[in-house]
Structures are given as C-alpha cells and as structure tokens.
C-alpha cells in the first residue's frame, strides 16, 4: 500500500470535530440539562436578565434554521417557454445559428456579455486617486501553479471560453477591437452542461489540458442542436460546473471546494447545493446573483469582511453575510459569543471544516520539471500508485492529490497579490529539477507543505491581524514547481500545444517551449530554463457543511489548535499576556516556596526541641 493511500485514508478517517463533541454529548447531556435549569434560575435570582437562554450544552446541539431563502423562494419563474418558440424550431447547422436565433429576441445579450469578465478574462482593479494604475487582473494576465498562464496558449485555453469556439487572436477578447469573438448562449444556458463539454471536445481542444492519461473512447457529442436549443433556461450547477468544476486541468484539480460532486451533493457535503428539503436546493446563481450578465462574487473583488452592506438578495454580491447577516448565531446556544467572532473570523473558517469531502480529490502538488520522460515504447506514459491515482504523466510531470483536505487558515482582506509571466522570483526559490517527484509518489500533504515552507507565492491574499478589514479565512495552498528564466528568475510563459514543434507537448523541449511562450507574452528570455518552487492560495468558499459539523471552540482555542501557527490576534486558550503569566506564576511560586520553607523550619525545629509547640 502506498503512502499516498495511507495519507489520504488517515485524513479521511480523522473524526470530524463534531464527532468528538458527539462522543461527549451523552455525558454532557445530563449535566447540560441540569446546568441549564440551574443557570436559568440563577439568572432570575440575580435579576440580571430573565430571558437568558444560555446553556451549558456544547455546540453539538446547534440546529440553526437557515435564515436564507429556500429554492422555492428564489426559483426563477418565467412567462417564456423556450421549448415552444418557433425561432428555436431549427434545424440548426451550427451553434452560431442557434446563437443568432437567441439574439434575435435577446438583442442586448452579446453587448452585455462582451463587458463581463467571463468574456474578457480581464479585470482592471480600482485604484485610489493619485496612485499609479494597478496592473490588470484576470486569466489573460496572471500565472498560477497549475496550467501556468494563458498568453501563450490562447488557442487551447479558449476551448473553455464562452465564445463557444476556439480562437488564437487575443484581439478577440476585446469587444472594442472590432474583431471580438462571438458569444455562445448555449455555453451557459444549456442546462445539462453537456453542450459545453461536447463542444470543446469537438472543437479540438488539447486532450492533455484536462486528461492526465490518454483515454480511448468516444468524445461526447451533441447531434440535434435544435433539440438542445429548445432546452435553454437559467444557468444550472451542471452548466456552470462544466468549466468551474474542472478548472485548470480536470475535475476538482484546482478547487477543493468546487468539483462535480456538487452537481447532486448530499447535505453533508454542501447545505446550500443539496436538494431540498435536506438542503437549500440552490443553484450557483442563487448566491452569484446576475445583473445584465454580470455575475457577482468574483474572487478578485470583495474580501471576507466586505459584504455586510452588499446583501446578495438585492443583487449585489455573493457573500455569506448577504443572507445570514453579520450576526447569524442568535438561535444557537452561546450565539452571542459566536457572533463576537465575525469581525475577525470569516464564516468559511468554521463552516467549511475540510474541502474535497466528496469522492473527488483535489491536486495539492504539481511538479512541471519532470515533464518529458517517455515510456519504454518511446511514447508518453503515466505512472500510478497502488490506488490507481496518477502520480506522473509525461506531458504534465509529477503531481499528487488529496481528499478531505483541512484548509490552511490565513489572514485575508480579500485582495490578491498576483504574479504574472515575467514576475521575478527570489533566487532562493530556484530548485533542482524533479524536486517534487518523490513528494508526489509519497503524497503526504504535511511533507509537501514542509518542503515548500519557504517557497514564494505566485498568488496570495493580503491581510494581517492589524488590518481591521482582514479576517481569518481558509484557503487551499497549492504547491508547484514551475519553469522560470534561469537568468532573470522571471516566471516563464510556456507554449503547451499546437502544430509548432516548439510546443512542450510535441517534443518536450523546455527551452523551445518557453522561447515561444515568452515571445507570445512579449517578454524577454535568456534561453535557459530553470525551475522554482512556488505556492498559491486558492479561496475556499463552497462546500459549507451542516452546522453540527462546523468547527468547535477547541479547534482553535487551544495551544496546539488550527491557529497555533497563525501570527497575530489574541486567542484565549492559545495566547495570554506573557508578562502577566510570568508575574502571576512567579507570585504563585514564591508563595509556595515560602510556605514550604516555613513548614520545613517548623518541622526541623520541632524535631530539634523534641517537643510540641505548646506545653
């Protein structure tokens, strides 16, 4: 049995905090009931407050009724039945004909979409007056630890673009250029998501982008476009998930909290997405409210503390507080105490105790430096561990996955510091090639984190305990070994695929692939490639667990808890005024020493005099 397997099983078999509470619940229950009665009568006696509902019961009894609306309250109701529209009767030769039919009624649709980040993959952050304009954010500009960056791979990456067709010309992202790409209504509004999946397969996207091994078998196909066109409706979990559940290379690879398990999840996996009545039966757009095709809740905007004044129900931003308010624990025992946390702790910290809790794992390590090892047949190959998980692929190098991952807790104000192709890393990040291959085979998340403890961040949230806007928030930390320019230590853009022999996945020559990539990104390149260890924080906002699985007090309020290593703040159970403890303990020690000395003298003199103190 591989260590990967053992590591994952260990994490899965670790009892959730709630279970630990549950064990004690039986003992606690009797105490709790008595204690509750006592406490209530005590309160009355001292005349403090007659309405105190404090009880000594643990958080295990939490059954908070969601104050958020159920699906029934927010379900879209429409007076239009698209299955009966003559415009959609077909037949259609291509999706472009379908789109023309859509836009013949929805005549501002293309214009609206052209301005959204879903189309432009570009976001110009707001800058304070007088300061230099910030560099643009968005997928077109940034780099990450997965499929690196888009500028050199527009042709491959755009297989997921809402144009519904691949394109190579970056001008096509820009609606003002005159050569903007079209919009494909079906990409988001075909409710099963199968159109999107079939479309980018048929469109000839690069297999290796998503598939770690070469699969045989048919690609999904859609034969009757008219039938598909007549099913259109609001976005669904499946249609959004066709891209977002498979971000950066397959199911759950990038996001531990967003994967295909959410298409029909049990309530234990996600209370919002599980079907009613156990869950709330939400779709993505219930929270990610949409106005003129602008979808709220991008990770580029808004931090964990930003949104109380932007309630989601009025159509502004996806946030927990939008529906639940900033003080949501009023129905819970000791709720006031819990509400006291919301100015410093993001909701997700306690309510998403682990990510990738379903069947789908998430990638935690990706070592690009080992790309290009061929099999005995001189063809690309894969290596697997005993459980069948792929630990190496010729096109992608070594990687490791994990399930039931405990998020890393950081201070975050929601602002991302992002690197982009060309961003120079410190020399200390440079690493030997194949640095991650042993780690990938062992698959031990703790060992991976330790090996990357000093690695710089290609993407990280800003924030610290001193900043009032920062909250303690959970992130997934991704560990990657990525190509850089050996001289400048700048992050490399890489041409992955295409007809050119320079493409990495054609001849596995890093120098040529980076040369072409840097050229596409308009960046200088020395001609030599090196590799660097980097890390990345990935936000964790989904897979909200039922309240009884939320973290309990002891998870953090102890010296070896989840926040043991997080600097800053004052955390009872972990911190104390050290000087006060020192003085206090000194007083206790002095008192004890004095009485012991006094006692010894009494005994000693008693023996010496061989008589009792008094006659």
């Amino acid at each position, binding site marked *: 049995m591989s260590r990967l397997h053992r590591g994952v099983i260990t994490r899965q078999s670790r009892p959730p905090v709630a279970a630990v509470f549950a064990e004690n619940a039986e003992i606690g229950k009797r105490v709790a009931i008595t204690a509750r009665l006592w406490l209530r009568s005590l309160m009355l006696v*001292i005349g403090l407050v007659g309405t105190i509902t*404090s009880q000594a019961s643990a958080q295990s009894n939490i059954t908070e009724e969601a104050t958020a609306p159920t699906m029934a309250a927010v379900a879209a109701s429409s007076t239009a039945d698209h299955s009966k529209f003559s415009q959609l009767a077909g037949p259609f030769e291509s999706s472009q004909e379908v789109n023309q039919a859509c836009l013949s009624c929805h005549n501002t649709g293309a214009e609206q979409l052209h301005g959204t980040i879903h189309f432009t993959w570009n976001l110009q952050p707001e800058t304070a007056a007088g300061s230099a304009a910030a560099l643009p954010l968005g997928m077109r500009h940034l780099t990450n630890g997965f499929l690196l960056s888009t500028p050199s791979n527009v042709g491959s990456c755009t297989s997921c673009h809402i144009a519904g067709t691949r394109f190579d010309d970056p001008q096509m992202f820009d609606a003002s250029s005159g050569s903007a790409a079209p919009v494909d209504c079906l990409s988001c509004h075909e409710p099963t998501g199968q159109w999107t999946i079939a479309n980018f397969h048929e469109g000839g996207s690069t297999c290796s982008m998503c598939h770690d091994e070469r699969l045989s078998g048919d690609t999904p196909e859609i034969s009757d476009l008219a039938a598909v066109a007549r099913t259109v409706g609001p976005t669904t979990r499946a249609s959004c998930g066709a891209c977002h559940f498979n971000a950066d290379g397959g199911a759950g690879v990038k996001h531990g909290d967003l994967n295909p398990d959410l298409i029909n999840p049990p309530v234990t996996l996600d209370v919002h997405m599980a079907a009613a009545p156990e869950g709330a039966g939400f779709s993505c757009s219930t929270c990610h409210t949409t106005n003129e095709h602008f979808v709220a809740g991008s990770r580029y905007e808004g931090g964990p503390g930003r949104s109380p004044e932007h309630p989601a129900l009025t159509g502004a931003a996806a946030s927990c507080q939008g529906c639940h308010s900033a*003080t949501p624990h009023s129905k819970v025992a*000791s709720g006031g105490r819990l509400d006291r946390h919301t100015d410093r702790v993001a909701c997700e910290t306690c309510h998403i105790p682990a990510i990738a809790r379903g069947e789908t794992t998430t990638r935690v390590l990706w070592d690009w430096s080992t790309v290009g090892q061929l099999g005995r047949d001189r063809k690309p190959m894969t290596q697997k561990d005993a459980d069948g998980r792929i630990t190496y692929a010729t096109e992608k190098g070594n990687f490791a996955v994990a399930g039931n991952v405990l998020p890393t807790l950081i201070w975050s104000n929601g602002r991302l510091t992002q690197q982009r192709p060309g961003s120079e890393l410190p020399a200390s990040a440079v690493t030997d090639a194949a640095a991650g291959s042993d780690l990938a085979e062992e698959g031990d998340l703790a060992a991976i984190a330790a090996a990357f403890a000093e690695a710089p961040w290609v993407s990280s949230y800003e924030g610290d305990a001193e900043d009032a806007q920062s909250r303690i928030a959970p992130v997934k930390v991704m560990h990657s070994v990525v190509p850089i320019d050996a001289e400048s230590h700048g992050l490399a853009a890489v041409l992955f695929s295409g007809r050119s022999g320079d493409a990495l996945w054609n001849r596995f020559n890093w120098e040529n692939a980076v040369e072409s990539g840097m050229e596409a990104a308009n960046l200088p390149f020395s001609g030599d490639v090196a590799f660097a260890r980097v890390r990345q924080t990935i936000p964790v906002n989904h897979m909200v667990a039922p309240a009884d699985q939320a973290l309990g007090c002891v998870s953090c*309020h102890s010296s070896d808890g989840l926040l043991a290593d997080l600097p800053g703040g004052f955390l009872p*159970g972990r911190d104390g005024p050290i000087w006060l403890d020192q003085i206090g303990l000194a*007083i206790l020690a002095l008192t004890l020493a004095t009485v012991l000395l006094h006692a010894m003298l*009494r005994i000693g003199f008693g023996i010496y005099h061989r008589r*009792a103190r008094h*006659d």
Partner: protein
Amino acid sequence: MTDTARPKSKGIYLFTGFERFWHWFQAVLVIFLLMSGSEIHGFYSLLGFERALNMHVFAAFTLLVLWMFAIFWHFVTGQWRHYVPSTHLMWATILFYAFGIFFGAPHPFRPTAARKHNPMQAMAYLGFKVAMAPAAWISGLLLWGYGMFPDLYPGDLPILWVNAIHIAAAFLIAAFLIAHLYLITTGETVTAQIKAMITGWDEHGGDDKN
C-alpha cells in the same frame, strides 16, 4: 507538633452553620473556578475549551449568588466587624510567624466571639473580600457580557485589559489559597483550625476579655 494533653473543653462556638456553609461552598467554587479558568487560559486541557468555559460561567454565577447571601448575612448579623482592620497585636503576630512559631512560643492572639481573626488574618480576608473577589467578578461579568450581550458592552473598554485584570485577580486568589491552606495548619495543633471550620467550635478560643 503532636497534640498534647489539655483540659477537655469544647472551647467557644466561633463559626455558625451559615458561615461554615458559605465558607466550604465558596472553597469548592473558587477551586473549580481556578481549575477551569486555567484550562480556558490554556494551561492544560481536560474538559475542552467550550465545556470549561460554560462550566466556569455556571460556577461563577453560583458563587455570585452565594456572595449575595453572604453579604446580606454579614450586614444583618454584624459579622462584618470582624474584618475591620486593626493594628492591635499586629507586630506580635508577625513576629510570632517569623520566629516564635519555631520555638514553641504561644500565639499572641486568641480568637474570641468578638474578634475571630488575628490582625494578619483579618487584613488578608478583607483584601480578598474587597479587592481580589470584586476584581475577579466585575471583570468576569464584563468578559461574559462581551460575548453574550455585545450591544450592552461599552465599546471604549479594552477587552484585553479586562481580561488581564481577571487573570491577575485569579493569580492573586490562587496565591491566597496556597497561603491559606498552609496557615490553617499553624493553629494550636495542625488540625485545630480546620476542625473549628468544620464543627464551628474552636477548642482554643478564649473568652471575650482576651
């Protein structure tokens, strides 16, 4: 330090039933509060933070009620007069504990119904009653209200200082407890004083003329 023969006498009745109930109930609660408080503070882990906190709060309110009864009792019965500080025999008492006790000197003070405590004792108990205990319960109530009734908490009051005062009071009370536990063995015999607090009768007490 063995008990020696003396005329059999029940002595004087110093501690009434309520006083003894108050004393021992308070002892149990204070010890529990110190233990659970240490856990909340992070010195060790036994009950778990949340349970320790809930039980700490529960014990604290119980103690507050007990103190309300005790304060009532002090004033109604006039027992508060025992805690009025006095310098009478102060030096003699200090010298006894510093030297005389080792050489078999008699205690300079004999408890009577009119004055139960020696001057050092009275001073220490007064310190506990008017300084340590109020510091603990006032800061404790504020800490409790901070979590339970955020709207009523005065925003200008730095909670970390309230917390520091609570911890400081706890350390002083713990030191008081250590000293107290030792000093009760310094009576006429090792167990004389604890017997008095259990039965109410001080075998070595004097009449009021002392």
